[in-house]
């Protein structure tokens, strides 16, 4: 399977990564090289094979459902590039 330029732009948008007009053809080549590399997997018979979920059969250990932290607003906001009055600041999303 290979991707065309329109698909490259669509994937870039789904990935939320802007791609310039110059970059798109390079990316198309690179993505197609990788997709070509993985193509051989189509030759493997996987009928009746379950997808792998764990190294050893074991039950996932669940922790107790309890409150373990809170009141850490300053820590949560400490690395935000834009903050105001205890909130993250984003561009207007609702008109």
């Amino acid at each position, binding site marked *: 399977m290979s991707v065309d330029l329109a698909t490259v732009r669509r994937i870039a948008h789904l*990935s939320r990564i802007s791609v310039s007009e110059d970059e798109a053809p390079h990316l198309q080549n690179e*993505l197609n090289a*990788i997709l070509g590399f993985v193509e051989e997997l189509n030759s493997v018979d996987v009928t009746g094979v379950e997808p792998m979920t764990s190294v050893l059969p074991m039950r996932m250990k669940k922790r107790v459902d309890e409150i373990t932290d809170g009141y850490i607003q300053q*820590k949560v906001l400490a690395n935000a*590039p834009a903050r105001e009055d205890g909130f993250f600041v984003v561009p207007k*999303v609702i008109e």
Partner: protein
Amino acid sequence: MTDLTRLTLAQARDGLKAKEFTSVELTQAHVDAVARAKSLNAYIVETPEKALDMAKASDAKLAKGEGGALEGLPLGIKDLYCTEGVQTTAASHILEGFIPQYESTVTSNLWRDGAVMLGKLNLDEFAMGSSNETSYFGPVVSPWRRKNSDAKIVPGGSSGGSSAAVAAHLCLGATATDTGGSIRQPAAFTGTVGIKPTYGRCSRWGIVAFASSLDQAGPIARTVRDAAIMLRSMAGHDVKDTTSVDAPVPDYEQAIGASVKGKVIGIPREYRLDGMSPEIAALWDQGVAWLKAAGAEIREISLPHTKHALPAYYIVAPAEASSNLARYDGIRYGLRKTGKDIVDLYEKTRAEGFGKEVRRRIMIGTYVLSAGYYDAYYLRAQKIRTLIKRDFDLAYESGVDAILTPATPSPAFAQGEKGSADPVEMYLNDVFTVTVNMAGLPGLVVPAGLSSDGLPLGLQLIGRPFEEETLFSLGEAIEQAAPKIVLPEPWWG
């Protein structure tokens, strides 16, 4: 006094206990070595003051005859582990300036046991790479050089800062992580020891996520014993990581020196690739001879799905990465570029914040997970993982204790030599290591010799799930038998 950076971690530990020197002296020697070695670019952030404070605290404990298993021992930390109050970047522009408000579980375990932090080690951006050339903070240079050449050699990747720092005596040992070979390939390239433990042995909490079903923490050190000592402190169950395993952590150091007589070593015929370099083939044969001489029984085995592991990895890993890296949005932390609306902000931030290889892998991952392709790619790859794992299960059920393979298809290469035209060329470095991540098994790499141009070569031992001890015993047998390889005189300062 002899140069304290020449000691192994175990020797330094014993020297501190015997009060031959203090942790402050030991730490200062390493701080000075780090400061002289800027040309290697192994550290992104150096924390000398923190290191000396921690060393003083350790000295106080040691003076009272107290202290943990790593008391007073200076280590380097891969900059993928969140360290409270110390910048953590994953070697990405998008996380430049990020100061974690919490400590990863593995590093917490190290500090609990008394270790001292020298700083944060360089890596490939988000651990995506095999040469440490994708770091936003520049490539790491290996302390090794080819004979009669001063070309800059790569230290492997993604844990290239860890491997270079350990090889160049800029720390006693280092933390690393391994998603497709990122502990073992750099260890092989630098003549150091690296172990990727069984998936679930170490907590992933607080380690910047790449591919969650493959990522595992482990140490790089200069001897098998040192790696065993470090892993014991790093490993253990953690309620904050539901994939971490609630099983006792053995005293791995006890496995050092245990007899390997009668152990059955599998030699997988599928690893003898067409066009394998004669040098690598000879090294592998030599490893077989060493283990045989130590009393092990050698048995040829077949792992028929081996050749599918690397392509399947390049579906699973990018798919999981595209999901994990969705969190870097320019809102909550890290880089932010302004845009005309929120989507434009995301797209500009991520285009500028992520490097080329990371953008490429996010896009491949997005594609294989996109509507209509999930079953054909991701689900199929996860089924192929089951087949890869079943190959190993059958070998182990037939009585094989561990499997011996080369670590890498070639010795280290020079900067810029690989992957610039075709990304797949770089991916092929992981052909011998990636199967182990796909199956979730433990893998240990030990130095075994030098290439014709004077660069280190390693052998890999693959074990049964949670039987790291067997790997340490066998690894030490190879270490004892192999010729001692000697690093060039410190040209880096």
